[in-house]
Structures are given as C-alpha cells and as structure tokens.
C-alpha cells in the first residue's frame, strides 16, 4: 500500500480532547444553571400558593382578636414585609429544610414527610422493578419479532394500562384478590398488626431482610403486592413502548446490517451492538418514570391506605391544611427536576456523539 499522508484531511476533524472537556464543562454548568432556574420557579409557584391559600393569619389568631393583636401577629409572621422579601424568607426557610408546619398536628412538615417518604419510596421502587421486569423483555422481543405474540400482548397490556384508572384497578384487585380469593390481605397499610422492623432504610422489605426476619419480610411483601402491581400496570406502558421502538430502531440501523455482513455472529451483535445502542432511551424513560411516580402514586396510595407522602397530602387537603400539601408538591417537583438533570448528564456519558 502506498503510504500517503492523509493527515492533512484529518486535522480538521481531529478534536482536541482538551476542547471536548471544556465543552462538556460548559454544558454541565449550563444544565446546572437551568436546574436552578427551574427550581427557583417551582419555589416561586409554591410560595405564591402559600400566599393565596387563605390568610394563615386569621386561622392563627381566632375570633377574639383586637386590632393590635392582629398587627402584632402580622409583624411576627413577617407579613408586612414586601412580597419579594417574604419570598427570600421563604427561600431561607427552604434551605434550612423548613417546609412549614401542619395546622392540624402542629408537627413540622419536614418531619412528617420524612416519616412517610420511605413508604412511598418502597412502593415506587417495587412498582418500577415490576414494570422493568415485564415491559423491557417483552418490548425487546416485540421489536425482534414484530406482530408476534409478544408484540400483541405488550400492545394490549399497554393500551389497557393507559385506559384503566389506577385507583379503580386497585379497587378491582382488592375485590378479587382480597374479598373473593383471600390471597392478599386487606388494604390497610404496610403491615398487618406486626411491628415494623428496626429502622435502617425505612423500607420494610429491606429492613426485615437485613434483620434476618423472614416472616416479617413475607408479610411486608404481601401488603406491598397489590399496590405495587397496580402502580406498575398503569405506569409501564411508556416503558414497553420506548423499549420496543428503541430496539426496533437499532435493529433497522445500518451498522447492525453491516456487522452482520462482516460475519459477526448474531449473538455477539445482540450484546455488543444492539443492546448498548438501544439502552439509553430505555434508561431515560425508566428514570423519568421513577421521578414522576414519587408524586404520581397518590391515587394508588389513597386506595390502599398506604402511609406515603401521597396520602399525607390528600389528608391534609381534606382539612384545608396547606403546608403539608405544598411541602409534598415541592418535594416531588424538586426530585423530578433533579432526576431529569441527572438523566441528561447520563445520556452524555453513554453516548459519545452527544459530546460534540
């Protein structure tokens, strides 16, 4: 082979690694900046709701207040300051983790959410786990074999998953599996009469296993089963769809065809070419589903009397107790935005093309 100097052509294409790093840092900072902007906007929204949601003033004072008492209270609560200063106070409070207090129980919202968050987390983790367990393999098979049983089964399950209201499905499950078949226990919480396991994570199934208490673990699972399956069924359609379309896209791509024509065995192609390329959108949708579900599990929690942050918010709502509601809303929104940000960064990590 003649040894020609091709580097002249390639210099323009040669990327300085240093330049790529700088570009990535700038992108990261830009996304971080956007993250902050969005969080600020979210907090502004919740702040304005606290101002709108009926004057907390009168509820705190009562009927027999004189004008002086009202003024004093107003001063004390900082309601005389200009609006933007009140907002700054609000932000200061947030940075300390102060989410207000429940009007009913007088306990700090932060504490009450903290007590209930593990319950929601447990439910969501298992629900997403179940979804991944059936939707991803089915979606992959459906992509490899279009119009096969996998494709049709997955499509039908997806369509029903979207059409069925989660709370109604929960009720149907309760009716069938508790009332008629007596397989699962009554929906009144996370455990029957038993005491929860010693606190490690707050997630009963994990804590029970850590403490070696297998009976408690089984009991927790029994109570977890119906709500987790319900939540999974109604939130898995996007996972199935995205898995199927992602694999489908990759299967039809030129590099898969080329690899086959170069004689690479199909088994190898599946693992080294197809799966890594199909994975990013799937990881994306799973993470987004997780982020959404922390707040989106409300209806299922309510139906099963699951002591999570969803029921907390709804109960508070019934008593016109607004601080808890806003605390939960703020938390969910923040979690979602942060997960979205992390997923964005993950995409860059996974796909070198995005680094340009």
């Amino acid at each position, binding site marked *: 082979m003649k040894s020609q100097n091709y580097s002249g052509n390639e210099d323009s294409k040669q990327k300085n690694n240093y330049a790529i790093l700088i570009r990535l840092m700038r992108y990261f900072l830009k996304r971080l900046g956007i993250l902050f902007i969005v969080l600020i*906007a979210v907090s502004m929204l919740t702040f304005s709701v606290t101002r709108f*949601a009926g004057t907390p003033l009168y509820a705190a004072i009562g009927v027999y207040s004189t004008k002086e008492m009202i003024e004093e209270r107003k001063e004390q609560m900082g309601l005389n300051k200009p609006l933007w200063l009140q907002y700054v106070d609000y932000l200061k409070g947030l940075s300390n983790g102060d989410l207000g207090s429940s009007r009913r129980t007088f306990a700090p919202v932060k504490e009450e959410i903290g007590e209930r968050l593990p319950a929601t987390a447990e439910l969501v983790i298992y629900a997403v786990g179940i979804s991944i367990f059936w939707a991803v393999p089915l979606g992959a098979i459906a992509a490899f074999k279009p119009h096969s049983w996998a494709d049709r089964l997955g499509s039908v399950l997806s369509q029903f998953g*979207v*059409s069925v*209201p989660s709370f109604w499905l929960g*009720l149907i499950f309760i009716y069938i599996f508790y009332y008629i078949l007596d397989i699962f226990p009554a929906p009144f919480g996370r455990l029957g009469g038993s005491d929860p396991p010693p606190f490690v994570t707050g997630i009963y199934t994990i804590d029970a296993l850590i403490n070696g208490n297998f009976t408690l673990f089984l009991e927790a699972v029994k109570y977890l089963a119906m709500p987790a399956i319900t939540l999974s069924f109604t939130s898995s359609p996007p996972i199935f769809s995205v898995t199927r379309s992602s694999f489908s896209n990759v299967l039809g791509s030129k590099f898969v065809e080329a690899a086959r024509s170069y004689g690479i065995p199909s088994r190898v192609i599946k693992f080294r070419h197809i799966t890594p390329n199909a994975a990013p959108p799937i990881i994306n949708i799973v993470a987004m589903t997780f982020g959404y579900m922390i707040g989106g599990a409300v209806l299922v929690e309510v139906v099963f009397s699951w002591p999570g942050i969803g029921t907390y918010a*709804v109960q508070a709502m019934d008593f016109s107790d607004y601080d808890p509601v*806003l605390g939960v809303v703020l938390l969910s929104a923040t979690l979602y935005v942060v997960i979205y940000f992390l997923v964005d960064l993950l995409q860059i990590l996974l796909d070198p093309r995005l680094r340009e």
Partner: protein
Amino acid sequence: MINQLKRPPVFIFLILLFIVLFGPLLAPYDPLEPKPMNTLAAPSWNHWFGTDNYGFDVLSRVLYAAQIDFSLSLVGVLIGGGIGSLLGATAAYKGGFTDFLLLRFVEVIQSFPVLLFALALFAAIGGGNRNMILVIAIVNVPMYLRIIRSSLLPLRTAEFIDAARCAGLNGLTIVIKHFIPNAKGQIFSLFVLSCAYAIQIIAGLSFIGLGVEPPHPEWGSMINAGAGYLMLGVWWPSVFPGLAIVISVYTINGLSRQQMTHQIRSSV
C-alpha cells in the same frame, strides 16, 4: 371513507359519541333522584347497573357523567391545546431567547406530577368545575407547546415564511395563518390523546374529592362513593363507572391509533 366507518374502533367511538351526546335522554331515571328504600340494590331488570348507597340509579348516573366528563375534558384540552400550540409555534418561529424562556416555563409546569399540581392549585384557588378546566388546560400547554414546536422548528427557515414576512405580514398573523396549519396532523392526533388523558385526570381528582362535587354524577367520584362497599361485596357502584372510563379512554386511544395507521398507509 365508508370503509373507515366499518372498522371497530371508529364504530365503537361513534356509539360512545352517541351516548355522550344523548346520554341524559337514554337514562331511565333521574340521576339525582334518590330512592331511600332501594339503596345498594344489585343489578336487576329495573336497574341494569344497580343502585348506589343513596338509591341513585347507577346506569343513569353513568350516562349523565359521560357528558360531564367529556365536556370538561374537551373544554380544558381546547383551551390548553390552543394556548400550547400558539406558544409552541411562537417558540419555533421566534427562536432565541423567547424559545429558551418558553421551554423553561414548560419544564417548570411539567416537573409537577399532575395530581399534586392540581392539589396545590385547588389549595390556592379552590375547587369546582371551572378550576378543573383550568387544571386540564395548564397540564396540556406543555405537551402541545413541545410537540408543535418540534414539528415546526425545521420550517422556521422555510421560504414561504420569508415570503410572508416580505409581504409585510406581522408576526402573529404569520404564526397563526401560515405556520400553525403545517402542524395540523400533529395537533389533531395529540388532541385525541389528550382528551383521553384529561378524562383520567378528572376522574382521579374527583376520586379524591376535588373537582366535580357530589352529588353531581362523575365517574371518579362515583367510584369513590362505592369504594367502601366494595370490600363488603357490593361491587356495582364502583365497577360500572370504572368500566365506563376504561371503555372511553380505550376507544379514544384506539381511534387515534386508527388515524395514525390510516395516515401512514395513505401516505405510502
């Protein structure tokens, strides 16, 4: 076109439409007329869907609720979709900082799980039908904005836009009359899907006691009312409204799928 009508999804959808439009006329009983003597009666020839705990006829309530659910969702989607499309087209047209700002704005809305967002909104300004429509509208704005924006973005530099500008038309006119019509297909298919989604939201909110106030018939609140009795074996007050939701949403989605395959096939 006639062949289209013969296909199951469209056919069922038309039946659904008929029920929605004429439900109240078909209802055998007044949905708000309680029969205290006849509470929680199982389905029978007199009451096809049985009666609930107030003695209301479940079938009649389901039929009336169809109108309420559909109309609320329709209005909400129209408002939200209209605003969202306009904003999306503006974002695509103007680009730059306007685009950036609109996208951030939409990100903020989308970061709230729908139900919690509704909770917060109701905490601020109260419940009721009007605010329900507001919730639906706000929830739809981001979806429409994003989708219209992404389908119109490539057209930003198209020649006919330049031509319109040269002709002296102002920005808003261009956006409405020339830009948006290119996304007609997208808007329509999104419209169908968002109506279905809106029904789910309305039902969910009514289930937890916000939204449509009892005793007005609404599928979600009916399910809620019947929930306690489910564990005692009285299944009909909750099951039938839920079935109505499932059938409605499934049919509407099926229609949209039908539309899409038809579009794909006719473009081949």
